[in-house]
C-alpha cells in the first residue's frame, strides 16, 4: 500500500477562477501546465455552491466579490491559451451555463480547448439540453459516479469518455474515502477501462497512499484553492511536491 508510484497517478489541480483575480487565474493555469499537470480544473464561482465544501465556498465568495463571471473566466482561459495547451476542465453549476446559453457555452468551450465540463448539479439521468449541445461541439461532459451509485454504475459510465469522475460522500475522512473506493472501483472496472479520477476534498498532503492505490488519479478541490492567494509559483511548487 505504501509503494504507490505517485508519478503514475494523475493529479488534477482545481483552481477557483477569479480567486484572487482573473489575471492570477491565467497565471495559475500556465504555471500548473508548466509544472506538468495533464489536466487543470477551473471551477467557475457560483453564489450558492451546494455541491462544494467550505474551502471552495469561501473562494467563490471572494471571486464573486471581485466581479468574476463566466465571460471573464473564458477571457482568462483565452489569455492562458497563448502560452499553454494544457487540457482544461471547467467545473460549474448548471445555471451558469444555462444563462450563457447551452449552445453558445458549448461552442465557446470547444473554441478555447476546454476538453471536459463537469456540471455539479446535472445528474446524467436528467433530460436536459446541455449534454447534446456539448456533444455537438465535441466537448466531453464528465461522467460522475458516486458512492451512492453502488450497484447502479453501468448506465452512468455507458457514454463516458476521457475518464470517470468518482465522488465520495462529502465529509468523509481519508480512511472512509479509501473504503468507499475499494467498494466502488471494482464495479466501475466491470464496465469501463477509462481512468478513474476521484474527487478528494481533504487538505491532506501528501495524498493518503490508500486512496492513491485505489484509483488512477485524484481531483484535489481543497489543496489548491486554499493556497491560491500565495501566488502561482507556490501552486506549481505544491503540484511538483505532490507528484514527486
Amino acid at each position, binding site marked *: 500500500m505504501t509503494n504507490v508510484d505517485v508519478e503514475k497517478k494523475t493529479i488534477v489541480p482545481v483552481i477557483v477562477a477569479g480567486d484572487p483575480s482573473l489575471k492570477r487565474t491565467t497565471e495559475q493555469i500556465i504555471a500548473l501546465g508548466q509544472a506538468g499537470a495533464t489536466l487543470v480544473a477551473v471551477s467557475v464561482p457560483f453564489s*450558492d455552491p451546494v455541491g462544494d465544501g467550505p474551502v471552495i465556498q469561501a473562494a467563490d465568495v471572494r471571486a464573486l466579490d471581485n466581479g468574476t463571471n463566466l465571460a471573464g473566466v473564458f477571457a482568462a482561459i483565452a489569455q492562458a491559451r497563448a502560452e499553454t495547451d494544457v487540457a482544461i476542465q471547467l467545473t460549474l453549476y448548471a445555471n451558469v451555463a444555462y444563462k450563457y446559453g447551452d449552445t453558445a457555452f458549448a461552442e465557446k468551450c470547444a473554441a478555447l480547448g476546454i476538453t471536459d465540463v463537469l456540471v455539479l448539479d446535472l445528474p446524467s*439521468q436528467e433530460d436536459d439540453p446541455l449534454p447534446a449541445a456539448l456533444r455537438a461541439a465535441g466537448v466531453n461532459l464528465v461522467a460522475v*459516479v458516486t458512492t451512492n451509485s453502488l450497484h447502479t454504475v453501468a448506465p452512468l459510465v455507458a457514454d463516458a469518455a476521457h475518464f470517470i469522475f468518482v465522488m465520495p460522500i462529502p465529509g468523509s475522512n481519508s480512511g472512509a474515502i479509501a473504503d468507499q473506493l475499494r467498494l466502488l472501483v471494482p464495479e466501475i472496472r466491470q464496465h469501463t477501462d477509462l481512468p478513474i479520477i476521484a474527487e478528494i476534498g481533504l487538505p491532506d498532503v501528501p495524498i493518503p497512499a490508500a486512496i492513491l492505490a485505489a484509483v488512477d488519479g485524484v481531483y484535489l478541490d481543497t489543496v489548491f484553492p486554499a493556497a491560491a492567494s500565495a501566488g502561482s509559483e507556490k501552486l506549481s511548487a505544491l503540484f511538483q511536491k505532490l507528484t514527486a
Partner: protein
Amino acid sequence: MQEIKSDHTFTTPGHYGDFGGTYVPELLYPELQRVADAYHAARQDPAFNQELNDLLANYAGRPSLLYYAANMTKDLGGAQVYLKREDLNHTGAHKINNVLGQALVAKRMGKKRLIAETGAGQHGVATATVAALFGMECEIFMGKVDTERQKLNVYRMQLLGAKVTPVTSGSAVLKDAVNAALQNWAARSDDTFYLLGSAVGPYPFPEMVHDFQSVISKESKQQIQQAAGRQPDYIVACVGGGSNAIGSFAEYIADPAVHLIGAEAAGKGVDTPENAATMTNGSTGIFHGMKSKFLQNADGQIDKVYSISAGLDYPGVGPEHVRLQELGRAQYVAITDDEAVNAFEYIAKEEGIIAAIESCHAIAEVMKLAPTLGSDKIIICTVSGRGDKDVASIAKYRGVEIDD
C-alpha cells in the same frame, strides 16, 4: 423580464412544461428516485391514505374552517370574501399537511431520522413536531444568523426534541442551511429523510407538496358548495415557494371559470433592489434542484432577496407556479411590506384574526380586488398561518416599543 424558450420536450418525470426536473448532484439522485418510488407506492396503498387522513383529522384538526368574512365583505363593498383558515391547524399553519404526509413516506421507507432546513423556524418547528409524534430523530439545519434572530423558535424545536445545528458557512442564512442539509442527506441517506417544506426543489418534492397540500382545495370546494351553493370565482393565496398556494389552487386548476391569484412579496417595492418578487422580476434558471424562475443577475448568480415576511423571503418559486403563469392559468401580483402590514392590522380589527404576515400578502390583494367586483362574486382567500409570531416585528415596523 428575460425568458429563454426551449423547444426541448422532456422525457423524464417531474417537468411542468419547461420547468421542474431533478437538478441535483449525482450523489443525491439515487435517493430521490427511491423517495419518488416510495411516494407513488404509498399513494396507491389504502392503509397509507387512511393513516394520513386519520392524522389530518385527529392530530392536525382538519378540516380547517371556511369562514365567511362578513365584516370584510361589508367593509370592502364588493365580492363576498371567504377565508380558508389554515391558521387554525395544529402548529398554526398549512405546513403540517405536508410534513405529516412526507414523514409517513419516510416511515414507510424505514427511515429513522428526519432532517430539514429552516429560515425563520416555521418549517423546522413543524418537522420537529411530527418527528416527536412519530418518535423519530430530528436534526434541523439553520443559518447561524437565523438562530440568533429566532431564538424562540430554536428553543421550540429543542423542546420538541430536535437537534438544531447552526450553519456557519457562506453568509450563514437559509440557503447555507439548505446546502448543509443537502450535504448531510447525501452522507446519510441510508437512515435519513430530507423533509422539504415548500413546493420547490427537485422531483418528486414539488409533486409531493402539491398532493399533500391539495387537501386545502379539496375541502374548500365542498365547503363553498355547502355555504354558497356554488363554486368560487377567485382563489387568492400568498406565494413564497408556493406550497399553500398550490394546495389552494390544485382542485380548481381544471376549471377555467375560477381565477387563481398568487400574491408574492414586493418587499420595499418591485422597482427597488429589496424585494422577493420572483414571478414579477425573476427569470428562468436552474437552482435548488429545479428549473424554475429565480431572482438572479445576468450571469446566473442568485440574488439576495428581501421581504418583511421570512416565509416569502426566497429567491425562487415552485416550478408548477411558473408553468401556471406561463399558460396564463394563474396570475401573480406583488404586494409590498407596507400593504401587507396594513392588511395585518385590517384583518385583526375587522375580523378578530391575527394572520401571519405571509398570509397578509394575500389579504392585501383581496382588499384591492374585492371592491372591483360585484356582490355576486365569491373570493376564497387562504389564511396560511397565524400571526402570533409576527406581532413583535409588526410593532417594530410601526415604531412601537414592546418591553418583554
